[in-house]
């Protein structure tokens, strides 16, 4: 019996192995990805304010993108500690005003810094 038991042992192991393989290569592929002996990656602390900054940036960008008439193709948006900063260039005073207005409306009570450079039309000296 003992011999029989020993003979059945490999079958059970093989069956478990097949079952384990049947789970898919992903399982085996993932296994080396998190080896227990490797040092764990540095802890990433994502503060609530940073998430809020990124969300506000995304909202401003989306509003500028969605507006059918404002041309803000050369303007970038950065939010730090709740302060929205608009950078880049505008080639038209109206686009500048409209961009600032839309950003202010999205930002609500949060501050909006205008670092947009208005590229003036050419003024040949004659």
């Amino acid at each position, binding site marked *: 019996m003992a011999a029989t038991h020993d003979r059945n042992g490999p079958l059970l192991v093989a069956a478990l192995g*097949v079952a384990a393989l049947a789970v898919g290569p992903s399982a085996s592929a993932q296994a080396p990805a998190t080896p227990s002996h490797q040092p764990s990656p540095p802890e990433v602390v994502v503060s609530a304010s940073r998430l809020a900054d990124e969300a506000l940036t995304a909202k401003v960008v989306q509003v500028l993108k969605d507006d059918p008439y404002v041309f803000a193709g050369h303007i970038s948006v950065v939010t730090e500690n709740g302060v929205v900063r608009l950078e880049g260039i505008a080639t*038209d005073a*109206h686009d500048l005003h409209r961009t600032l*207005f839309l950003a202010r409306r999205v930002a609500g009570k949060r501050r909006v810094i205008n670092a947009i450079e*208005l590229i003036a*039309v050419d003024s040949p*000296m*004659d």
Partner: protein
Amino acid sequence: MCGTRVLRSLVALLAAVLVICSYSASSVAQTTQDQEARMRILQQRIDDLSKQLKQMQDEQTKTEKTVSTIDKAWNTFIKGFFGTLDVSIDATTKGMENMIAYHYGPCTGPNFTAPCPQGAPKTSATPPFQYPYGNVGWMAMMSSNGSNVGYRGSHQIGKSSVDFIYQVSASLDMAAAPGLQDTWTKSSNTVQGAIGLGDTYIGLRSKTWGQFRFGEMFTPYKTSTDRLNPFAGMLGNYSTIIGNSGGDNRIEFGTRQDHVITYLSPSFSGFSFDASYGFAQNPDPYNTTLPLGSSDCAGANNPGSGNLFLNCDDGAWSYTYGGDLKFETGGLYLVAAYELHGKVNRSSDGIGSNSAQYAALPGASNGCTSTPNSQYLDCATFLAYAAEFPTLAPLSSPPFNPYWDSVNEWAEKFGGQYHFDFGLTVSYMYEGLHRSITPALEFQNERDRGNSHWAALEYDFPGGADRVAVGWAHAGNSPGDPAGQHNYNPNLLGDYSADMYTFAYWHKFDKQLTMYFNWAETINYGNAHYDIGAGGHGIKTDCHDATHTPFVDYTSAGPTTWGGCHPQGFSIGLNFKF
């Protein structure tokens, strides 16, 4: 017997079972070994497949990263380009068709001012004529307005927080071939439509201390108030009057300057400031030659445009410096700006002057042939000219002495703007222009001017596709006018003010394409001669007629300027930005 049989049967059955079992056991053992071998092979294949799959995934990831990097670099490169393409069809008039030139007798007022006995209309067959000469009424034309293309970018210096920045710009003429503009109505060596005619510079930028720029560019005096001007590039551009001393097409304060350094500060709680310094780099003490490295005189135009042979004497400055202070919060914008031009040479203002006060300077009316001559006249230069061109000299008159007529000019302006959330933008600005000329020459000083204003209202209709704006600019009075080429009325001496009114409507098709309509009219009082379109509109409509003489000398070779004209125009155009 029966029990024995049963026992034998049981033993036989047991034996059979044992035989079967032993056979089965050996059979099962054999099967297990086979399965194990197959499993090892299967496992090996699975491992091989996993490796191949991982390799494919790695390659795919690498390819995606490469493509992503290329896309990012390409997008960054493409986004560096910017520009404006703008062409309009205009209909304008100089508004001086019915003006008549009269002879005037010697003025009997203080300092040879009005009253001046009016004589008969001029009837000369040669300039100046009785009426403005040439096509001075309504004229249709095509104009390229503020069109340009530029490229800008930045480059991080090592791992520092400082970037190297750069911009190259080119002013495009969408309606004509690029080239020089050299005729009797305009003299310039600057190639229109060439790369570099536009803000072009290199510099350094930091988030903490701002940025420095080195090159050819507009100075803060102009850029700080650009946003107050909804009519940039149009007939009703505020530069028709703002920054434009003396009228005509050329702007004195607000032009692009050669070899200039600018500093732009970051924002401090809404406050920011900018500064500029322009190198003189001119070997002549009165700036009568080109600045080293420049193709035109400082302040524009080529040598001779002021009618003195090969001289920069029509506003050529030395060094410049200036700056601005700005404050912005919410929809509010406040600005103050200042700029100084050193030793601006305007000695050609005396050439061919009609001013009675000029004629009263000893030596002016007799060609410096009597002594003592006025110290304010450059008789030495004129007598050298007279010796070389004895037949032309009697037609001419001596210029002012550059020692007295090369002095500082400066300007200041204060303005504000408020954008209401319902779509209205209100802008206002005050400007003062100054020239520190000696009192004896104030009679020809058209560069000193206070009481000048700009106001504009701009309204965005709901939806954002359409907007409308109105604007008003006022030029305050100046102490004098050179009247060098101006067919002025001496009885109106002392009034050089003007008003410009403008209206515009824009319709946007999308983010980049706009159609616009603009109307503008300048009402010149007395002998003022401001135009429409100065400072960005491709074609200006001014108070000059088509009078000219076929040579450049001390006589009044340029077109006659009819002070008091009323230029007016309509413009409809398309504007595309990218």
